[in-house]
């Protein structure tokens, strides 16, 4: 679009808006004519027309009108004196220095803010990785120490050791081995929007914590005696929950694919496949590309879970049972002396916090 058409457009627009009453009321030179007004050469417009839309003026003459005015006044009154010239020179220099500094500061600001975020993110990611490695190492160490402690205890306990191991295996604290099933579960491909090609937000084939919960419960129902998800053993107090996009079992984040290994009767694989849960996930597999595989596996070995510890209850050992009444033993110390803590020592209220006889392994 050249200038002429632009001006014509401007005039037509103004006329349509009724800003110009008619040719008679028009002060502009020939603006009402059907013939386009003559274009004035750059910089020679004698009086800036404010009525002609300012966009046209902006496009036509981007230079500040003040320069022209100053030049005209200089031509009238002659060049400025030396003092005025010096002041102008100083001002100009200061302005130019300020411009240079402004450019640099803006550049530095732009450059500085960008990597700040990136470096912070990077160092955070490194922190997370380092901590995860530390956690893994410590978990391995804890496992070793647990085995060591178990063997030492077996040596001390003697004939009752096998019963203790039984209890531990059942409660999930001890490592177990046996035949069972392996269930592999992985998210299907994220569906893409047919128009934009971007992943859609409603991802039906995405595995969430609920899926692992349902399958674990179905395995318990089918007779599993020990279950581990990606190596994390499930015990009575285990949680499977979502934290953001990650699935946590207890406090350990899991990543895909999810492998659920369960030790139980040989009928377990079939039972899972034929259960409503198995049917549902088979449907998800055919419809949404979810990976769902159940196969019988022999010789599974599941590690024990970390001991969650008792926070409120106190186990009753045979020695303390004979020495003191259960309600009067608030601490692990089995001595018969009066407890110093735990508020007023009223004569034994009937034990709102009396510990259970044994740490019950099965109940949720």
């Amino acid at each position, binding site marked *: 679009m050249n200038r002429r058409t632009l001006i014509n457009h401007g005039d037509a627009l103004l006329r349509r808006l009724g800003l110009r009453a008619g040719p008679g009321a028009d002060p502009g030179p020939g603006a009402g004519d059907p013939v386009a007004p003559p274009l004035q050469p750059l910089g020679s417009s004698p009086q800036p027309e404010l009525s002609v839309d300012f966009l046209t003026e902006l496009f036509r003459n981007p230079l500040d009108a003040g*320069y022209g005015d100053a030049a005209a006044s200089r031509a009238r009154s002659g060049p400025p004196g030396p003092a005025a010239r010096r002041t102008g020179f100083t001002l100009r220099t200061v302005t130019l220095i300020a*411009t*240079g500094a402004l450019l640099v500061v803006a550049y530095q600001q732009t450059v500085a803010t960008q990597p700040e975020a990136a470096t912070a993110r990077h160092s955070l990611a490194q922190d997370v990785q380092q901590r995860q490695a530390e956690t893994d190492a410590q978990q391995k160490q804890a496992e070793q120490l647990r085995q060591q402690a178990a063997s030492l205890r077996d040596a001390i306990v003697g004939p009752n050791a096998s019963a203790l191991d039984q209890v531990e295996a059942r409660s999930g604290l001890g490592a177990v081995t046996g035949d069972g099933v392996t269930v592999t579960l992985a998210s299907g491909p994220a569906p893409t929007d047919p128009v934009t090609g971007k992943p859609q937000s409603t991802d039906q084939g995405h595995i969430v914590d609920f899926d692992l919960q349902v399958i674990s419960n179905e395995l318990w129902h089918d007779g599993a005696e020990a279950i581990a998800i990606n190596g994390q053993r499930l015990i009575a107090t285990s949680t499977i929950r979502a934290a953001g996009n990650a699935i946590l079992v207890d406090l350990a984040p899991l990543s895909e694919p999810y492998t659920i290994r369960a030790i139980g009767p040989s009928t377990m694989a079939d039972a899972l496949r034929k259960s409503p849960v198995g049917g549902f996930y088979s449907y998800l597999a055919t419809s949404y590309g979810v990976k769902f595989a159940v196969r019988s596996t022999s010789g599974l070995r599941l590690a024990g879970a970390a001991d969650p510890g008792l926070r409120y209850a106190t186990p009753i050992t045979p020695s303390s049972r004979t020495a003191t009444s259960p309600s009067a033993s608030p601490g692990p110390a089995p001595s018969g002396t009066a407890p110093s803590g735990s508020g007023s020592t009223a004569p034994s209220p009937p034990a709102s916090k009396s510990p259970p006889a044994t740490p019950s392994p099965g109940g949720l």
Partner: protein
Amino acid sequence: MFAVLAMIVGIVLGVVLEPTVPVALQPYLPIAVVAALDAVFGGIRARLDGIFDDKQFVISFVSNVLVAALIVYLGDQLGVGGQLSTGVVVVLGVRIFGNVAAIRRHLFRA
């Protein structure tokens, strides 16, 4: 020539002193840069046209920067900061292009 020297001095000063911009002023920095560039290109063109004036240059620089910042501030208060910034950038950008075209005509006769 001297103008270029003064600008280089300014750049060096900025690099050496590394002034920190207060956080409250940071949103106005880009728009102030565009406004300053407009004033500088206007000055160069006026110089080539032979009508350069110190007073006009300084005033256009200061007022450009201040008005641009004021418009952005006003827009931020009204909740249309992005749109007003775009408007300022468009207007100043058009002026910069026009002046650069005039400078180009002066320098290369094309």
